[in-house]
């Protein structure tokens, strides 16, 4: 039995007398990739932000790496890496300086070039952040979140707005980070992404978790209920065509 790294208990967030997150509980094990799925407004981002110490907790508790989020936010921040929904950086700042800055924010001293190599931005080390494409910016953002070797890595809708090549590249990157032993918790609306990346997913709607299991088991449960999808005989879809035509290589 692997140890639990994140424990969420009866977590509640209330905005304008309405519970946005309504008493949810879940655990994440060390080394897992855990996905939180749900339509817009389901409470995914709010849940993530409370775990990341960014929003006050209105009810319940969160323990991460044995630290209580509500009472030890500074300690929690030191063990987690956060990738926000939109990756923005100040203008006129070189990539290696951005890495240096984030490392400094965590009290660390790192070799920025190494971290940029890891996300395939080594050649861009001397470029300004504003010259990067969307996918490159996401990769830079991932690099900045890993400068302090966090134990848990949070990604909020990491591939929204990226082209298919950049998405695939980012998936590979997330798998690599996970392979190094980092626990990954992400939110997404893309179900193919969740199916491919996540060991387990929680599906949220209206502030509650309505299902939680491995993607395979969730699908099996549905099929066991007698669900039948309209049969598709095609062995490929339009995305396969697109990737076949344009190649897997990154474009930026």
């Amino acid at each position: 039995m692997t140890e639990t790294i994140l424990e969420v208990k009866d977590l509640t967030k209330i905005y304008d007398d309405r519970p946005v997150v309504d008493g949810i509980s879940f655990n994440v094990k060390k080394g897992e990739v855990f996905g939180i799925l749900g339509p817009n407004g389901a409470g995914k981002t709010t849940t993530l932000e409370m775990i990341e110490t960014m929003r006050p907790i209105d009810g319940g508790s969160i323990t991460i790496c044995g630290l209580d989020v509500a009472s030890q936010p500074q300690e929690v921040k030191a063990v987690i890496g956060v990738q926000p929904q939109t990756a923005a950086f100040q203008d006129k700042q070189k990539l290696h300086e951005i890495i240096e800055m984030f490392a400094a924010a965590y009290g660390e001293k790192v070799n920025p070039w190494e971290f940029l190599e890891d996300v395939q931005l080594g050649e861009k080390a001397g470029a300004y952040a504003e010259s990067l494409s969307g996918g490159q910016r996401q990769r830079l953002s991932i690099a900045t979140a890993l400068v302090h070797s966090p134990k848990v890595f949070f990604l909020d809708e990491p591939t929204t707005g990226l082209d298919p090549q950049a998405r695939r590249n980012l998936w590979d990157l997330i798998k690599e980070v996970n392979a190094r032993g980092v626990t990954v918790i992400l939110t997404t609306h893309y179900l193919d992404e969740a199916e491919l990346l996540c060991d387990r997913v929680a599906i949220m709607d209206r502030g509650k978790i309505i299902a939680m299991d491995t993607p395979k088991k969730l699908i099996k449960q549905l099929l066991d209920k007698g669900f039948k999808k309209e049969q598709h005989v095609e062995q490929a879809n339009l995305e396969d065509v697109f990737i076949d035509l344009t190649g897997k290589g990154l474009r930026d």
Partner: protein
Amino acid sequence: MTLKQQLRTVLIFTKLSTKRFFRDKLALFFGVLFPLIFLFVFGSMSKGNTDTNFRVAIFNQSKTQYSQQFTKQLTDSKTFKVQKDVRDMAAAKDKMAKSQLDGIIVLPEQFGTVDQAVNHPKGVVQVMYSQGNANTGQTLIAVLNGMVSGMNAHLLGAQPPLAVQPAPVNDHHLTAFDYTFAGLLGFSIIGIGIFGPINVFPELKKQGILRRLHTTPLRVWQYFMATMFSQALTGLVGVAAQFAVAIAVFKLNVAGNWFEIIAFTVLGIFMILGIGLAVGGWAKNERQAAPLANAVVFPMMFLSGTFFPRFLMPQWLQNVSDYLPLTPVIDGLRLLTTEGVHLINLGHQLLLIGIWTLVIYVIAFRVFRWE
């Protein structure tokens, strides 16, 4: 994190944001070039005021040789700026009504005719001045009187029994430019300390950059301190440029000690920056930042002696403006720079700056929001 590590973080943030400043053309323009433009404009204006002169029109209706000599003497004199483009009396009166002329000097037809009995020229100089500007008129008349008595003495060849002997004393006289310069330094400190943060912070919040930093263990005090250091560094560059221009172009005479001037400037930047950090750190967006910043900056700008000296204000207003945060900065800078006073004698100013710095930063820490 140990304190040493935390301070190292501050130094790295300082280094990186100072580098950014020098790459940002817009920041350079507003931080360095913009105050220089003001310096040139206000400097040239107050420079013209330092030597007294009168703008006059002369109408010589006499044909005598002496009247021409007299006119030439006025024209050559540095005290008078004879406006030669004023053709007729109507134009002259119109100009005088618009304060573009200080007086009109008329030499009547008979002026300078030689009186055969005493063998020297006689005449009456007529001076017209605007009643709305009686002070200047009186001074003009006094100056002309002085000139004429000198001539009389020369013509009569006699020493008048009573005379006035002028003796200029070099007593560290403050020129209008000295006041203007300290005020403009104050203005540029406002530009660096207030207009910088109130424009930058809401933008950083909008893009989520501050929020991203907030997910790290970085503390508000570290972020503030790094901002203070880098703003002080970049601010000193702007101030140095102003000193260079003031000395080279406007002949500013720096009587004080440079080290003290730098130290005092840094204290001033720290305090004023606190206002920018409070307003910019509190505001969620530009719409909140701009009105509040204007409400704080404008009274300070006009009452603390940035563009015109405070001694021109009524006493009660001076009493009030004494306690504005920018006033001790501008007064202190002027005293240090042009009057050669030492920091140790600026207790009043330093105390005010200290109190304001404390109050401002307590507020800034309390109202700061990362998003």
